[in-house]
């Protein structure tokens, strides 16, 4: 009688501990994903913050490039709009992610077009201000890449812990759901080429 009680208690204990372990793991993964999503948003914001100075500096030397400058400013506005629309929810569904990525990638291509245009203006290229901004932009782009990669890794870990057999059962309790990762939109790896006559 005593032995049986001990065995049952131990079994229940093991089940409880296992479920608690899975639950906690999911919560951890969720928090990690939240944190790395925060990094993604922060790095995107960092880039958006650089744009006004960049536009001003380029304007000083290349006022004729109105269209290119305009495109950059508009792309930035679009990013801000989408951000407001989506809000700062940590969990974005596929559609919202698509919008956000789309706006950011438009920003990226407007920027690279601008930088290509700058090649025509040696004075601008030699300007210390511009050189500094260029370093900052490169640094920001790199941070964005790193942040996205890390977010994807966290999302992969999270999804794994929520989609397994046991994970599914527990995720009802923990409220942790599958998340959307970043997927490159087709063709975004190829920088737009502009040729000069």
């Amino acid at each position: 009688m005593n032995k049986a009680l001990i065995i049952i208690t131990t079994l229940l204990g093991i089940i409880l501990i296992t479920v608690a372990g899975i639950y906690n793991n999911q919560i951890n993964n969720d928090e990690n994903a939240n944190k790395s999503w925060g990094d993604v948003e922060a790095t995107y914001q960092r880039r958006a913050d650089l744009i006004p100075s960049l536009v001003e500096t380029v304007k000083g030397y290349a006022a004729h490039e109105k269209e290119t400058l305009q495109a950059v400013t508009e792309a930035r506005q679009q990013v801000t709009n989408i951000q407001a629309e989506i809000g700062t929810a940590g969990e974005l569904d596929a559609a919202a992610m698509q919008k956000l990525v789309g706006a950011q990638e438009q920003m990226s291509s407007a920027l690279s077009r601008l930088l290509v245009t700058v090649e025509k203006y040696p004075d601008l290229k030699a300007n210390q201000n511009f050189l500094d901004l260029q370093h900052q932009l490169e640094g920001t782009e790199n941070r964005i890449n790193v942040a996205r990669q890390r977010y994807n890794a966290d999302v992969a870990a999270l999804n794994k812990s929520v989609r397994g057999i046991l994970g599914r059962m527990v995720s009802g309790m923990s409220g942790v759901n599958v998340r959307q990762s970043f997927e490159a939109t087709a063709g975004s790896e190829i920088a737009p080429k502009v040729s000069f006559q």
Partner: protein
Amino acid sequence: MLATSIFAKDVPEPSGHVTDLAKMLKTNQEAELEELLLSYKKTTSNEIAVLIIDSLEGEVLEQYSVKVAQQWGVGKKEKDNGVLLLISKRDRKIRIEVGYGLEGTLTDVLSGRIVDGEITPEFKDGNFYEGIKSGVDMIIKVIDGEYTEENVQEEISSDVNLLVLGACAFVIALIGAFQWIAGGISGGIIGGFIFWILFGPGFIILGVILGAIVGVIGGFILRIIAESEGGGSSSSGSYSSGYSSSSNSSFGGGSFGGGGASGSW
């Protein structure tokens, strides 16, 4: 957003602060740099590493650089105060990778200026040692003052503490498993002693109480586990110190976010 190539280049083993895999530096030059960076670490806790590779083998400079820096764990874990200077000889590329903790001082702009102004000109003239040396000197000048000797003194090696506590707790519990009174007493004594050494005389009583509790309750738990397995005491394998250090380098486990600057010559 580039996917990682399946031909991704491996992260090499670091050999001290300066790892020269492309034989860009003479032995005495490497030794001088090593000495400089080692003593810099000792006085400021900032970790600067230099890696010279022969070729990136197709990998993107920035991706490889942050991979190496992160895996090596350059910089102290709590401070993320690390910098990696990566040079790829055949690609003729340079990058300064800055850890989270130093991004505020060694900004992208400053990193960029160091690459452009200090390192690249020398490299263009074929003066590799001079380029690296002046780059490192400038990096040091920029980040100096961020951390002082006081901060370094305050570091109690928390890793060792945890290990010691864990081991003692287990031994006490074992004693308690055999005889709970003995467990309680030995726990109290050992606990008080350990807490006195690690935290100071004010913590003796706390140590005694905690030690006794661990002895009695820990012993009780171990007993139940032992009895339900029908015999022999189990050496509780669940006792992991929970400590993962960064690979096998002598760096502190600092993290990187992608800040820094690249250049080429």
